[in-house]
């Protein structure tokens, strides 16, 4: 063995031993690393692996129904075959996929737009409807081609539907897709209630489980009741998001039904009676505060809003001069005009400013300082006492009364009746209006010369003009409060909340808000005068042959100042014409219904507003339906 040298071999052995040491150190390092990962940090990684594999799939809750006081369903859900796309499985441009699908099933530009918007909002997680209400043929055609479209499927989805379309749209409102703002709000709400349930699952299921929320109307104000609680499925998923199996699930809790105080048939009749005219109509049951009808004309179709309204319809609604989206009884403020007179008369009685017999000689005008206030009967009404002032609607009587009372006294009497106040109705966005007082003027104007109250400004307040500006809701509410002898019931549209399973009802009707100290005999004097208005006064022609005794008061509100000229309906441009107002109630001995209404820019109240009230009362008191209006039918 000549080649084998001892030192060489020795050196080799030494180096191998060092190599073994090196290998041991490196493997030791691996073992330390593995010990760190698998033993010391095990919990952390176990949690990460769990959250990796488990996805919470929200199960939306069925939204509660909206039902009128007689059991007619006016807001409901329907299940429809829907073409749905799993966003996580879309490869490339979604438009290409939609184009391909459109070859089999009709997909409109609106479907496409809504789908893409939902897709963007969601950052491509979740399943979204592309086309709903598939017909059987469309479904069959798709199923035959399904293999071509992974991630696309047909399933039954729940949709919100308002079966009567435009009817009662402003009070029902509508639901729409959850916006970023809605989400934030719900997040805050959720943070408050945390701890009641497994917060982890709740957090991950609650928000994604709510895809629609009420945007306006009762849908909005009773959102939490109607919504229910979404459930969830805990699903094991792959890295690609494909579900493997369901690990656990919590069923959703359906929302509760909201039973409205509205008589939808009365509502439908009034809406028909308005026809193309604009205006607001509110009917209240005085004893309870139940709103029986809440009409705002023109209206809109809430069904258009559910899946996102298309731009053309939106533009039309939004830019229309008629303002169909404007909730008139809630937000529209108008001078009450002569319908204010019964309230003024009551004030005079209660505050001992007039006795019923006190009479004035009316020359047809009233001069205060250097301004002449006209009565619309040229030559005047002659000798006028309280009853006659209401029956014939004498302005001069109230000019004098206003002067004698002063702005602040009127304000203090009218305030508890609810004029210029928030009534607290269960709809969002109520407008306060203006019940003028010297105090009000100081806060309403900026310049000192404007803040000063002029005595001349007091006079026209007496006939419901001047700064007076109330909602029709306030007018109806005020009348109901008087008819109720000062017991103020908060007006409300939702009467009860119904459990969808047990059918158990829970009344939402509040107890009386407060009481105004009114003398019943004074109220009777006013009622007697209002009955006389319909018998021999300004609206007598509208109430000829009525089968019940009804009280009423007409009003005609000026839209712009005439500057002492005589108003001519025909020559005045439409939107500057007078508003016709009317308040009414029936039956006289125990009023079941109090009404206030306005027909915008139509002219005299007696001529244009009172007939609507007569027909509404005919229906509500006697069940009589006018011949000219087609019979109203329930939608099955």
């Amino acid at each position, binding site marked *: 063995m000549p080649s084998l040298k001892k030192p060489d071999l020795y050196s*080799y052995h030494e180096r191998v031993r060092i190599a073994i040491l090196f290998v041991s150190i490196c493997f030791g390092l*691996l073992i330390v690393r593995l010990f760190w*990962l*698998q033993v010391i940090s095990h919990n952390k990684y176990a949690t990460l692996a769990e959250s990796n594999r488990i996805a919470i799939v929200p199960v939306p809750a069925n939204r509660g129904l909206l039902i009128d006081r007689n059991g007619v369903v006016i807001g409901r859900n329907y299940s429809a075959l829907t073409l749905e796309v799993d966003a996580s499985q879309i490869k490339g441009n979604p438009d290409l996929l939609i184009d391909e699908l459109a070859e089999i099933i009709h997909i409109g530009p609106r479907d496409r737009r809504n789908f893409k918007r939902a897709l963007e909002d969601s950052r491509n997680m979740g399943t979204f409807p592309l086309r709903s209400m598939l017909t059987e043929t469309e479904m069959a055609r798709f199923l035959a081609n399904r293999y071509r479209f992974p991630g696309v499927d047909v399933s039954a989805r729940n949709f919100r539907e308002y079966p009567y379309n435009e009817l009662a749209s402003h009070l029902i409102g509508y639901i729409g897709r959850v916006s970023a703002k809605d989400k934030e709000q719900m997040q805050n709400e959720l943070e408050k209630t945390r701890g009641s349930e497994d917060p982890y699952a709740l957090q991950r299921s609650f928000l994604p489980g709510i895809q629609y929320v009420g945007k306006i109307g009762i849908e909005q104000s009773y959102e939490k009741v109607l919504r229910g609680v979404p459930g969830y499925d805990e699903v094991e998923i792959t890295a690609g998001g494909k579900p493997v199996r369901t690990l656990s699930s919590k069923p959703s809790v359906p929302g509760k039904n909201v039973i409205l105080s509205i008589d939808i048939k009365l509502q439908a009749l009034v809406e028909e009676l308005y026809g193309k005219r604009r205006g607001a109509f509110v009917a209240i049951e005085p004893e309870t505060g139940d709103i029986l009808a809440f009409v705002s004309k023109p209206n809109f179709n809430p069904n258009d809003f559910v899946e996102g309204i298309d731009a053309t319809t939106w533009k039309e609604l939004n830019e229309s001069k008629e303002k169909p989206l404007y909730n008139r009884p809630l937000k529209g403020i108008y001078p009450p005009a002569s319908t204010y007179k019964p309230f003024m008369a009551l004030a005079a009685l209660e505050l001992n400013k007039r006795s019923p017999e006190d009479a004035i000689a009316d020359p047809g005008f009233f001069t205060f300082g250097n301004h002449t206030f006209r009565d619309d009967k040229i030559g005047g009404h002659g000798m006028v006492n309280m009853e006659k002032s209401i029956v014939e609607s004498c302005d001069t009587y109230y000019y004098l009364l206003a002067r004698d009372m002063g702005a602040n006294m009127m304000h203090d009497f009218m305030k508890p009746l609810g004029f210029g106040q928030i009534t607290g109705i269960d709809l969002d966005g109520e407008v306060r209006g203006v019940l003028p007082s010297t105090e009000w003027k100081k806060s309403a104007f900026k310049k000192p010369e404007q803040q000063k109250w002029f005595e001349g400004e007091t006079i026209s307040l007496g006939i419901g003009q001047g700064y007076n500006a109330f909602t029709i809701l306030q007018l109806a509410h005020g009348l109901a409060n008087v008819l109720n002898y000062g017991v103020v019931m908060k007006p409300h549209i939702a009467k009860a909340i119904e459990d969808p399973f047990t059918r158990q009802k829970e009344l939402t009707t509040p107890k009386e808000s407060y009481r105004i100290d009114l003398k019943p005999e004074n109220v009777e004097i006013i009622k007697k005068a209002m009955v006389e208005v319909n018998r021999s006064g300004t609206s007598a022609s509208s109430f000829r042959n009525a089968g019940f005794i009804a009280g009423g008061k007409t009003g005609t509100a000026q839209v712009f100042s005439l500057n002492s000229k005589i108003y001519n309906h025909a020559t005045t441009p439409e939107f500057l014409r007078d508003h016709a107002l009317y308040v009414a109630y029936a039956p006289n001995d125990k009023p079941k219904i109090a009404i206030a209404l306005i027909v915008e820019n139509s002219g005299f109240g007696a001529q244009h507003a009172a007939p609507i009230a007569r027909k509404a009362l005919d229906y509500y008191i006697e069940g009589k339906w006018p011949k000219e209006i087609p019979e109203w039918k329930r939608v099955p």
Partner: protein
Amino acid sequence: MEKSALAKAKSVIAYAFRGFDPHLGFIFLGLAGISFVVFLSAGQGTPVAIVDQLRNLLIAFVIMWIVSQIPPKWLEMAAIWIYGIGIALLIAVAIFGLIKKGARRWINVGIVIQPSEIMKIAVPLMLAWYFQKREGIRSAFDYLVAGLLLALPVLLIARQPDLGTALLVLAAGLYVIILAGLPWRWIVPIVVTGGVAILLLIIFSGSICAPDVNWPLIREYQKNRVCTLLDPTSDPLGRGFHTIQAIIAVGSGGFFGKGWREGTQSHLEFIPEKHTDFVFAVFAEEFGFLGNLVLILLFFALIKRGLTISMGAPTLFTRLLGGAISLIFFTYAFVNIGMVTGLLPVVGVPLPLLSYGGTALVTLGFGAGILMSIHRHRRLVQS
């Protein structure tokens, strides 16, 4: 007659396995057993069937057996030819190789092969042959020559680009040179320089990993791999995803593991390349720290046995070759596990025997066969 037939068969078997090292054989069988069990889990959901893995394991064993029959002398004689052919093929690849995924690594010589794989064995063969030739008359100049013999293929492979394989070939060559007796005064400065460089890389990772910084000589994807290692969370859904998910798989395995075929990370497709480069993540998730200890001990036993065989080898050539092959096994195992556990950058290094892949198994079988041959022929030359 029967008896004699039986005896004859016995003697044939005895002849076939004479000198067959039982230690190495059992370690290999143990690893193959683990490989088979893991593959039944890791192979699920992949297009690869268990029979493919069995076939590859079988081929590896056959190659191991065949190579174990070849006397080391033949290898010594063939070394320069294998190396030469390898270099020629690498040059051919550089000129008209096939491009896949942006890298020119393959060449069609009837079948498509990857010549850089050959160099993993060819380089230690060549260097061991060179030091054998220069035995007794070795000078500092010889280390320079060895360095050049090593640098040539490493550079050719690195510019394909295939940094992972280049580093493995470099490691294989360096093992031979160091085992051959490269003076410590040369080794120490190199190790220190390397250590400092890595330390600097970690310290300045923030600034040098900025997207618009280009590294000299290094491709974008290689830079990304290094940067991802330095901070996998910097891109949790992109480049860092593999590393993070692999670490989660390993960590969630815990001490005893989740149980065979119960790994959620593996079976829910969170582990990339779960039956090839990342098979360790599957193993670690399902068998836990305990399983990992067993596996690492088996690898250690394999390497230790290989080095022990090399110490008993009769010639310098066989000693260096055996030592280098053992350390190549170590490099594979260490780099792969280090990569899966986030200690090392993601380089395409399979875990010996466990990862699915024909070429790697053939190389492994070849290496193990050489070790066996050295063991078997230790006395033949000596006597």
